[in-house]
């Protein structure tokens, strides 16, 4: 079974399991991959129906399945294989007027990969992104762009690398106008222009706001819109600086999920590098996480620390520290730290999460939240 048909099956299952929201978004992904105008029109009609308050979930499901049946009859798009897009070799940046230095970093990014850059403020995330997009010149090291023959620091290269800064540009006009203008700049005119603009609005959950002006959107939706506009540019690599800032938790999850799915397009896959401080959320969607601390790649530099193989648990309980210590006393607890509202417990690597659950079950602890962060960069954010 080819990739397109597998994805069709997945989408069908989402609808059958009544996960209409995910099913709807993934259905649009399939149609975007197919790139046929008649299906653009069909999903636009469906979007009208989907967002109509009088439409029942049953009918939405029924119509979606009908659309999926139609999709099964078309010849699937060709699957584009993953390839290395950018490779950095010992890239280093020293600012002459600032004390900060970005230490040598080497990494690759492939299509369909999401690389998360995490770290506290002022640790070099934005510098690294700006180096990759050509806004800054490295002091040492090399950045190779494998997807293009364009010269480094050329306008042509910049058109293929899309960098979305933390502060997005203020736009004028309606959402549709702006998207259409973007598409026209990329040579997509006539009917495809308006249809694709509408489809991407639907894909990013902006359908109910399609007739609004840009300035009427909330900051969360502005970021979604920025993403929509960016995606229309068919970037090879998408560089996002703190896209989750100012977004609520649900919006953060949706944006990250969308980035992951969209980057895995069958026909037009792309790589994503995003910086964020939302460790847990970023980790969930990333194929690789780069943790920067004071300009250094901590994941690379602290390998020995990683190899110590502690089992590290983040736990939040109603009880006090003494009660927690008592409950975990039967386990080989090495250290317990209180960190910003929750406890971080370090156990010997032989202690599994199951064992910890058993001990907690035996105790009278009232657990609000528990998470294994042994392999998460969250463990670096401990006092």
């Amino acid at each position, binding site marked *: 079974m080819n990739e397109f048909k597998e994805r069709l099956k997945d989408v069908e299952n989402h609808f059958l399991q009544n996960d209409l929201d995910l099913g709807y978004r993934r259905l649009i992904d399939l149609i975007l991959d197919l790139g046929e105008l008649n299906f653009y029109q069909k999903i636009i009609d469906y979007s009208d129906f989907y967002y109509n308050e009088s439409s029942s979930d049953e009918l939405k499901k029924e119509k979606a399945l009908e659309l999926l049946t139609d999709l099964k009859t078309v010849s699937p798009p060709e699957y584009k294989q993953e390839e290395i897009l950018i490779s950095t070799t010992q890239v280093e940046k020293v600012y002459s007027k600032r004390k900060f230095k970005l230490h040598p970093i080497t990494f690759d990014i492939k299509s369909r990969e999401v690389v998360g850059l995490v770290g506290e403020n002022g640790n070099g995330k934005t510098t690294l992104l700006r180096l990759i997009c*050509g*806004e800054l010149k490295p002091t040492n090291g090399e950045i190779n762009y494998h997807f293009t023959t364009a010269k480094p*620091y050329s*306008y042509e290269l910049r058109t293929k690398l899309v960098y979305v800064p933390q502060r997005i540009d203020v736009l004028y006009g309606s959402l549709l106008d702006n998207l*259409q*203008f973007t598409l*026209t700049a990329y040579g997509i*005119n006539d009917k495809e222009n308006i249809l694709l603009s509408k489809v991407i609005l639907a894909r990013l959950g902006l359908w109910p706001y399609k007739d609004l002006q840009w300035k009427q959107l909330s900051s969360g939706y502005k970021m979604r819109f920025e993403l929509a506009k960016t995606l229309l540019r068919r970037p090879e690599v998408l560089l996002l600086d703190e896209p989750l800032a100012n977004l609520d938790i649900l919006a953060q999850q949706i944006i990250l999920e969308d980035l992951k799915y969209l980057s895995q397009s069958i026909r037009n896959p792309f790589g994503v590098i995003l910086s964020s401080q939302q460790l847990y959320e970023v980790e969930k969607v990333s194929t690789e996480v780069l943790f920067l601390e004071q300009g250094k790649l901590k994941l690379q530099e602290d390998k020995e620390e990683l190899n110590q193989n502690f089992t590290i648990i983040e736990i939040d309980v109603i009880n006090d520290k003494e009660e927690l210590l008592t409950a975990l006393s039967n386990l080989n607890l090495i250290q317990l730290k209180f960190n910003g509202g929750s406890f971080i417990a370090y156990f010997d690597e032989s202690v599994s999460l199951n064992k910890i659950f058993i001990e907690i079950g035996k105790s009278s602890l009232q657990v609000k939240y528990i998470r294994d962060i042994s392999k998460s960069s969250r463990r670096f954010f401990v006092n």
Partner: protein
Amino acid sequence: MFKKLNQTLITKYPLIWNLKYIWILLAAIGINIIAFINGFLFFSKKSQLQESRLFDGFTEGGTFVNYIFVSIIILIIWLYFYIKNNRFKSFYPTSRNYLFKEFLALFFLFFIFLYIPNSFKFGIKYRVANYISNEQYFKDIDIINRTQVFTLQPSFGYNNSSRYLTVPAFDSLVSEKETKDLFEQNFIAYKKQYPKAEKHFIEPYFRNPEFEILLEKHFPQRKNYQPSGFITNDVRLNKKNPDDYNSYVAPNTYATDSAMAYIPPVEEDIDAVKEYYHLESLYNYSRLAFENKNDKSKNNEYYDKELIALLQKNDRKAIAVLLVDYTKLLDKHEIGYQFKKSTWLNYIPQYPYYFIDYHLGKYTNYQNDSIEKDYINQTSLNEVYNNFEKAKFQSSWLENIEYYMMFAIGFAVFLVTFRFTSFKVWLISIVGAGVLSILGSVLGLGISSIFNYNNYTPYIILILFYVLFIVIMSFGLRTKQYKLITGVNLNWFVVTNIFIGIVLLGFYTDIRADMLYDPTSKISIYQLREENAELRLLKQIADIFIYVNPILYIISFYFIINLYKNWQAMPEE
């Protein structure tokens, strides 16, 4: 409809959509139309026709302030919509052609806004031109041309040096030979005293001062000790002051006021009591007030012949008819005339010589009650028809267009540098330009104090700066370093390009003028610039270059765009 138009523009003509070009163009054209209507309505009173600066109402009346204010408001609103979408800065694929078209569109837009004064002028001209029909206009100027001589205004035109045709009444008294002989005699004596003097015997012969001297002998009764009001240059050559000698007179030009060559009688005694012979006559009058654009045969010569024939016939009835027609014109345009003691016809000199004893001046000349208050306001009537002539036959379409183009380029560059660079670079370029001009002045003073000031210092400093802009900009673009400084120098280079051609041409002209100038000669450098063929050619080239310069700049800008593309992709510091 608007939605459909918007769709078409956004998908097919994104530049027009982004520029909001249709709307701003409509606004620009609209304001020009308003200016035209405003100009049309500006002319509302007959009396305005007598104003010599009637067509300058736009600047004279303060109207331009309103237009500047409204234009600025419109442009600010437009900029708000235009500036926010910038595909070039957002790194959307943007070709050189696209950016060039954007520049052209801005240039054209600003040009239309700057064209408002001309539209206003058209409005006035259109109304004035249609105030009377062409047929009526030609009839009226015919009356004016014929009557001009009888208005007896205190100006040139009644002495022998003014006329071009033979008047038997006078020319039968003095022959050409007599005149020439006296001229030769005078000239030999004069040459002894002033060896550099050149010989200029004027044709026709009666325009020479010698003719007048010979004629005086036939009219001893015309001798007086007071100068006539009609003669404005009756100071004869003072032998002790050779500067009074006017050596150049254009030969055989018709009706020129410059025909005042004068070689005095050698015997003249400057210390003697001055004597004047009042030989001014209607016969000599040869000034065409208005050209007939419709009938070229009704030229100066035609009217001169008509006048001489009329005077020879001694037809005072025909003159009276002319005067009545003229007063009707004055009445029609509400222009003053007044005769207290007698009718106008009584002022007209008598046959056979028509020597002038009285004249009618302007009303304003008669402030003193003891003087007769009779007057004809010929100047105002001429101004009225002068305005008709300008409105009907002098087009203003291309008037000042070279300046509008230059300013339009200036404004377009002002905006485009903002669009193509960053706000920071743009602002530093503007502030820096002020600092640079102060620096240039200081540098100029420094150079002057060390090497002595000369005329070339400002040129040299400007060229020095220009070269520096190019060097710094090229270095930055090549090495991909110092984006800010490179951008600022790129902007300065682009702005300097607007006028560098004119400056270089001026510089070259000054150098050539200095090279050609001989300080030992009596000709000043200003005269040299007027008379030297090469310098005159350079001046002509400069005049043409002002028109060509904007076109050259626009062409050069096409190539400059790639520099902006390279700059835009440069890494920051």
